[in-house]
């Protein structure tokens, strides 16, 4: 066990998988000498050489497209998109190619690649370095979309993604990179790519979240515990496909559900979560399913007061939780 930050856990996973399997290689912008603009690939080019860590030209569609071909040839690419906001020119390669290769070839070919990308805001990144892109990329059969919210999950989930035979979009919340440190096993381990995890047990209400807002929720839950309110908290981790059973179980347990995410409210993953509950845990519900999310505006603005206005504040989340608990 070593205490590591979220981003250190990611680097650790990359290094161990590269050492274990020589088919694994990294490509992306500035991932080599620079070690990535966030330093996730720091030191890896020195350790593994220029054919294992590739500073790709500035062209995201090619980064993903070349990764797909390399995967077809038997390699295990881990592509980095520098900011999630810049992934959109690769949409066709991700959705029409990577996600459909196995299906369209009737299982003859596959696209075992990982696309890592930092998403989310709150770091003065403004409209083009703060976006939550999960709503766009979830719902594409053949593609997995996952996001860890802590160092332990980051490492195990990334190793699982690299070993997976499916294409995985691996979303890293950039505000979490250095926000928290936790004990992480030194040896390699994997965590399931398609499972949510209970982060806190409770009986009065259920809050479902992922990524950065999960911490607001946990903070609120901790606070409300002092008021005698017991909160059950589920971290989705897998945003697509969703872990239906875990969602239904968590909702049924308390009968009162709040869903919180940073992505815009309308059209966000929370809609699908609510729909699952409203269909399959309906009779367990004791209150309307509440959602809180980012404002329905293009993204987080740059000016601090505007940036702050984008997300529901912890106070607001707590208020919604309290209201549900007392419902």
């Amino acid at each position, binding site marked *: 066990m070593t205490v590591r930050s979220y981003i250190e856990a990611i680097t650790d996973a990359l290094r161990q998988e590269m050492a274990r399997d020589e088919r694994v*290689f990294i490509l992306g912008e500035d991932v080599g000498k620079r070690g990535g603009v966030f330093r996730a690939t720091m030191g890896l080019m020195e350790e593994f050489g220029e*054919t294992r860590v590739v500073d*790709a*030209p500035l*062209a995201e*569609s*090619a980064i*993903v*497209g*070349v*990764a*797909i*071909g*390399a*995967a*077809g*040839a*038997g*390699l295990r*690419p881990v592509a980095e998109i520098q900011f999630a906001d810049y992934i959109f*020119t690769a949409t*066709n*390669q991700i959705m*029409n*190619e990577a996600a*459909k*290769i*196995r*299906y*369209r*070839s*009737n*299982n*003859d*070919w*596959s696209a075992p690649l990982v696309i890592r990308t930092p998403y989310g805001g709150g770091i003065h990144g403004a409209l083009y370095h703060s976006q939550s892109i999960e709503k766009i990329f979830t719902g594409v*059969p*053949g593609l*997995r979309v996952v996001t860890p919210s802590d160092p332990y999950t980051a490492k195990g989930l990334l190793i699982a993604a690299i070993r*997976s*035979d*499916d294409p995985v979009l691996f979303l890293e919340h950039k505000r979490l990179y250095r926000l928290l440190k936790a004990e992480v096993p030194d040896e390699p381990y994997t965590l399931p790519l398609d499972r949510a995890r209970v982060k806190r047990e409770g009986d009065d209400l259920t809050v479902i979240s992922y990524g950065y807002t999960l911490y607001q929720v946990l903070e609120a839950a901790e606070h409300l515990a002092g008021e005698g309110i017991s909160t059950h908290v589920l971290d989705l981790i897998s945003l697509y496909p969703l872990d239906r059973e875990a969602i239904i179980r968590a909702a049924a347990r308390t009968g009162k559900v709040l869903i919180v995410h940073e992505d815009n409210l309308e059209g966000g993953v929370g809609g699908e979560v609510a729909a699952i509950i409203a269909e399959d845990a309906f009779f367990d519900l004791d209150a309307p399913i509440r959602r809180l999310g980012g404002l329905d505006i293009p993204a987080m603005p740059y000016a601090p007061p505007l940036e702050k206005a984008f997300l529901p504040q912890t106070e607001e989340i707590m208020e919604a939780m309290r209201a549900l608990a007392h419902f």
Partner: protein
Amino acid sequence: MDHRKASLRDEEVIQIYRTMYLARKLDERQWMLNRTGKIPFVISCQGHEAAQVGAAWALQAGSDAVLPYYRDLGVVLTLGVSPRDIMLAAFAKAEDPSSGGRQMPNHFSDPTLNIFTQSSPTGSQIPHAVGFAWAFKVRGEQKVAFVSFGDGTSNQGDFHEGLNFAGVHRLPVLAFVENNTYAISVPYHKQVASKTIAERAQSYGMEGVLVDGSDPFLVYEAVKNARERALEGLGGTLIEARVSRLVPHSSDDDDRTYRDQKELEEEKARDALGKMRTYILDKSLIDDAALEQLEKDVMDIVNDATAYAERAPYADPSTVKRYVYAEAE
């Protein structure tokens, strides 16, 4: 050109003609089946066969990676895809090796021949070929990645991004453009701003080669040379073959609104397949009787493939959900 200049044996020339002829006949048959309501869709190789067979003749089947596009019936037949396979795809039957009837016909795929699975969005296969070439290079394998596409497709971002990546790393990619001067209805001058596609190679530090796609020997030689250069580590080549699209874009198209029909008739009169037939007779590589027999044999194969595929079963609807994700073994 004379085939001996390209170091092709007489017997190979007969095989090249035979493959071109087979491609044409399989293609024509599909139009017939479409017009009689038996299959919903055809997209043709007609007019491209000489270029396709000539190009593929220079490849190492099963070893080189091949990423063809929807017109490349001649390419895949040369590599070893069978006429039955083609017809199974046309009829969308379960046994179709490219997709089990999931994709439209001519979306070729065959892992045993290292033909990578194709989609429909034009140009997306180009970066894939670059990825294959990357793997070949880092593993030190003596293989190239061959990728083909049309003139219009050379305007897609993926063409530019993919070939630049290949150029930076001098990867063994052969990018083969079948320039038929149309993208559906849009003629070359409204489509492509450069005089030739081949000259776009300059943007990628690559060789660019322009070749008459009605002569399979010239195309063969161009691809063979490019392949050798690539294997020597000298990087990829962008090869433009000038060809003629002898039929509408697809069975859903009608070219009369946009294409000068007289010009088209003239192109048909210059059909590379006919030219090739004349060539093998003129050079006495075959006599009339043997040629007739060869063509009859091909028709038998086409008939057999059609009959086989027509009778073959569709995939069971219960399979429709399979292979979205990897299945546990």
